[in-house]
C-alpha cells in the first residue's frame, strides 16, 4: 500500500514571532524554519507502518517555495521514499492546498494520506478534512493511534471529552495529533542517503488548476500584552489578593 504524507515548512515552534511594523504579516527574514511538528509525526507514522510491512512506499509532498525542499529532505531522511515539491511563490489557503493535494493524490493513487492536524503558523486545522471531502473519502482526524486493516483502519481520536475509536474505510485521510508517536531523529547516514532519493519539483502551473482566493488579509497585529503582575511572598498574601480580586 502506498502512503502520501503532506509536509509543510513553518516557522520553528520555538522561534519568537514578531509582527511586521506595517501589519502585513509576521517577520520571516532570518527566522529558523522547520517542518511542521504534526507533519513530522505523520511521516514517523508512515515509516512505522512501513516497518510493520503494511505500507510499501511513502511519498512526501509539500506545496511552497523552493525552500520547502528542506522539509522534504527532512522527510526523506526520516524514511520517506521519494518526495514531490509543488513549487509556488504565493501562500495558499487550506481549500486551495487541499485542491492541489487532490491532484497529486489522483496521480499517485495512495490508499492513505497522512497530514498534520494543524499547521502551527496558520493554526487552521482544515486541510485534511477538506481533502477528504474533495476526494469523497473517509476521514480520521486528531488521531493518537492507527491500526491499518485490509479494507479499513481503526483510529483513536483525541476529542474534547476523551478518546473516540472509529473504523474508517480505505482509502482514507488521517490527521495526526501529538500523541500518535514520538518522531525519531534523522541519523547522519540517513541524512546522507536522503540526498540520493528522488525529489521532483512540479511547477504549480503544470497542474492546470484554477485557484481562487477566498480570503483577504486586511491586517496582522500583535495581541495586547498582559502586564506582569506582582510577586506575593506567602500563601496567606496570595489568598488575600484573590479575595480582593473577588475571584474566590
Amino acid at each position, binding site marked *: 500500500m502506498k502512503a502520501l504524507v503532506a509536509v509543510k515548512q513553518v516557522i520553528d515552534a520555538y522561534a519568537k*514571532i514578531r*509582527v511586521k511594523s506595517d501589519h502585513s504579516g509576521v517577520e520571516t527574514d532570518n527566522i529558523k524554519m522547520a517542518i511542521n511538528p504534526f507533519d513530522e509525526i505523520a511521516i514517523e507514522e508512515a515509516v512505522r507502518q512501513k516497518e510493520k510491512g503494511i505500507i510499501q512506499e511513502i511519498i512526501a509532498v509539500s506545496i511552497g517555495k523552493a525552500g520547502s525542499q528542506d522539509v522534504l529532505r527532512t522527510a526523506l531522511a526520516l524514511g520517506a521514499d521519494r518526495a514531490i515539491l509543488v513549487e509556488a511563490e504565493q501562500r495558499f*489557503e*487550506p*481549500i486551495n492546498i*487541499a485542491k492541489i493535494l487532490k491532484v497529486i493524490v489522483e496521480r499517485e493513487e495512495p490508499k492513505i494520506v497522512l497530514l498534520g492536524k494543524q499547521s502551527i*503558523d496558520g*493554526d487552521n*486545522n482544515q486541510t*485534511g*478534512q*477538506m481533502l*477528504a*471531502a*474533495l476526494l469523497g*473519502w*473517509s*476521514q*480520521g*482526524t*486528531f488521531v*493518537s493511534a492507527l491500526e491499518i486493516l485490509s479494507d479499513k483502519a481503526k483510529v483513536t*481520536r*483525541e*476529542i*474534547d*471529552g*476523551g*478518546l*473516540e*475509536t*472509529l*473504523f*474508517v*474505510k480505505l482509502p482514507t485521510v488521517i490527521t495526526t*495529533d*501529538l*500523541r500518535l508517536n514520538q518522531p525519531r531523529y534523522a541519523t547522519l547516514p540517513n541524512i546522507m542517503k536522503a540526498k540520493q532519493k528522488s525529489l521532483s519539483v512540479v511547477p504549480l502551473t503544470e497542474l492546470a488548476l484554477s485557484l481562487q482566493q*477566498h*480570503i483577504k*488579509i*486586511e491586517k*496582522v*497585529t*500583535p*495581541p495586547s500584552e*498582559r502586564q*506582569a*503582575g*506582582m*510577586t*506575593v511572598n*506567602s*500563601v496567606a498574601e*496570595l*489568598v488575600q489578593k*484573590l479575595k480582593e*480580586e473577588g*475571584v*474566590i
Partner: protein
Amino acid sequence: MQLVIAEHDNKTLKPATLHIVSAARELGNDIHILVAGSECHAVAEQAAKIQGISKVIYVDAPAYKHALAENLAALIHSFAASYTHLLAPANTFGKNIMPRVAALLDVAQLSDVLEIISVDTFVRPLYAGNALATIQSTDSIKVITVRSTAFKIAETGEKVAAIEKIDKNFDLQLSEFVAQEFSVSKRPDLTVARRVISGGRALQSAENFKLLEPLADCLGAAIGASRAAVDAGYVPNDYQVGQTGKIVAPELYIAIGISGAIQHIAGMKASKVIVAINKDPDAPIFKIANYGLVGDLFKIIPELTEELKKVI
C-alpha cells in the same frame, strides 16, 4: 440568515453552542439552529429555548448518532444554500466537521474566530495567538468555527422557536463508530469552568497530580494540564490546555509547576486573573501572571488548600 450547528450528546445541548449563538446574533437576527442526532428530541426542545433562535431544524436518524464527520457534513451541506453563515464551536466537534462542509461548498473556512467586525470581516489568531489577523471573506457562504470563550453565553428561557422536523438520511457508510472513552469527572468542564487549576511536568507522576484535587474541590475548579503532563501520562489528553489543546478563559487560572511555553500560554492567556506557582523565579509564566508565588509546589499546594478552606 445564520445556521448554528448544535453540539450535543443526543440528550443535552453542550454549553459551547450557546456561545456560538451569541456570535451568530452579531451577524443578524434570523438564526436557525440545526439539531442532528439520533433520538435527540430533548435536544431540539432545549435548542428551541435559546433566546434569539427563530427556528430549530431537527433531523433524527441513526446515521447522525455519533456526529460522524462524513454524514454530518453532507447533511449540513444540503441545507447550506439558504444561509449566509454556518457556525460551529472551534472545538474537536466543529473542527472535525466544518472544513469538510466548506470543501463541499467550495468555500474557505475561517477557524477560531475571536471577534466579528462585520458580516464578512473577522479576527482570528495565528501563530498560537502571537499574531491576530483581520480577514475578509469573499465567499457568499461563510463557514466559521468560533472560539466560544470569546463570546458570552446566550440566555435560555421560554420556548421561542418552532421545531421543524426534516427527514434526510445521509448515511455514507465511510466510517463507523466503535467506542468512546470519556474521562469521567465530577468537576466542571474545563472550557466553561469559572476556575481552573492546571498542573505541569513538575507534578512528576499521576499519583502526585492528585494533589491538585483537594485544591480544585475547595474552589469548585476544573483541572487542566500542560502538554508535558499529558504526554507523560499523568492525566488524560482532554486535560491539555494550549495551542493544540483546549482554550480556556476562566476568572481564575492557577498554573502549578508549568513553565509557560508560548503553546501553553496560547490556551489560557485570556483568563481574568492568572496565578503562577513555580520554583524558578525566571519561569516565563511569571511574565503573564497577575500573582506569582515562587516556591516548591509540594509545600505550597497543601498550604494553599488549607488556607482556602478557611475562607471559602
